[in-house]
């Protein structure tokens, strides 16, 4: 299930990117399965095709899917070890998230507990 909030400040292509990342991690889109064709998803959402296309290209650039001329966007298996370039970006993201948690007054234990919980539901345990 993908949920897009049309009243949100966040652009629809960013929301789509994030929703797909969550769906991949939760195993809702199995490895090697195709994402819906750009046209069909755009029609289902009632948005321009370029919006969906942009989200798919973001997913490709992040390495989560490969885009094939015949089969469209296909889900890649999760990496077994992190890429050097991605690691830097991830450090910045998590720093921001931790900073926000600190400012919001969320205790350290809760942050760590929630991270572990999420990682485990995403299949992190098996690896």
């Amino acid at each position: 299930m993908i949920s897009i909030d049309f009243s949100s400040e966040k652009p629809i292509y960013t929301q789509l990117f994030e929703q797909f990342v969550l769906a991949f991690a939760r195993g809702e889109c199995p490895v090697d399965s195709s994402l819906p064709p750009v046209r069909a998803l755009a029609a289902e959402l009632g948005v321009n095709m370029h919006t969906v296309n942009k989200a798919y290209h973001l997913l490709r650039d992040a390495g989560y899917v490969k885009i094939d001329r015949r089969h469209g966007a296909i889900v890649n298996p999760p990496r077994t070890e992190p890429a050097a370039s991605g690691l830097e970006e991830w450090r910045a993201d998590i720093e921001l998230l931790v900073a926000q948690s600190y400012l919001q007054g969320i205790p350290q234990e809760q942050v760590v507990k929630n991270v572990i919980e999420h990682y485990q539901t995403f299949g992190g345990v098996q690896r």
Partner: protein
Amino acid sequence: MSEQDWVQLMTIVLMSVIFFITYHSTTFAPRHTLYGVFVGDAEWPTDRLNRLHRQFRWSLLWVLIMLMVFSVAATPWLASVHVSFVSAPLILQWVLYSLIYVRTHSSAKRLLADLPTKPTPSTVRHVDLAFLQWKIKWQVIFTRLHSLPALVTVSLFGYMVVHYPKVPEQIPTHWNGLGQIDAYVNKEPFFVFFPLGLPLLLVVLFWLIGRSVFRLRVTLGPGSNRHATSLLLALSIGLLGFSLFLTMFACMSAYSMVTSGDLPRAWLMIELSLLLASLVTVVYYFIQYRRAVNAMPKEVTGTYRVEDDHRYWKWGMFYHNPTDPVLFVEKRDGAGWTVNTGHWKGKLLLMVLFLPVLAIMLLIVLTV
């Protein structure tokens, strides 16, 4: 009064009843809407709401009485001007009822603007990826199935072009209920190719529309796609059934033209049952779907659809959204779907449908 006058009067009354049921009742209108305006769970002042309903009922009744009088009094005069002017009251009815709808819609809009607490429609759209895959699968299947009648009608047309000289000098143009020929005309290209060309055009049109059926945004809400799937399948089956009906009609008229024989009785039976079955299927599932929509708890506003946004609607009737890639959307006002005039295909479809009508009207006016 002649039999034709009675038929016309009955048609006017029947159209009024259909109009009244679809627009006045909330059974057919999309969820949380009234006269094409989103009401949501907001509390509407009962007195103003009743006044709105009363205004709608009375305008409808007055127009109906006026039309009936006009139909009875003016038909002989209209017929004396031109035979096709006889149906003028029916066209007038369509125009006047549209005006009544637009007027009530505007009043409802004003009422909404005066509400102290505005309704808040859902802004989140949930997309069930499995349901989307299901829709894509069936879209492919039905597109392939629709190519069969298209192929048959095209080949039939081609066959008649090649074998035109072999067609007898007298060709049948009308058959009675038993399939026996009851009218002939002298052979002319128009009479030979019109009964084949019209089904051909419609079959191709249905092929294109059939593809768009699976783009309809009919999801009721997260996790309730059962009625949506049956509605989509029923619409597709109905469309395909009608397409096959037209194909069989084209085949039978071609057969009757070439052999000068009556329509085969068995074919006629199959054709009629096909038409009836398609109609019953569509009506049944449509009612089921609307029931499922109305049975949803009031607090569930469902999932956001871009066509629920009133900014894209003109007079609560015309949907214009250039960023929406979908050709058909559910109407604001009641039963059925309308085209997206922001889509190039929507513009083309409207032109294809209206240009012949305009051309015929122009021809009539010019020849009077």
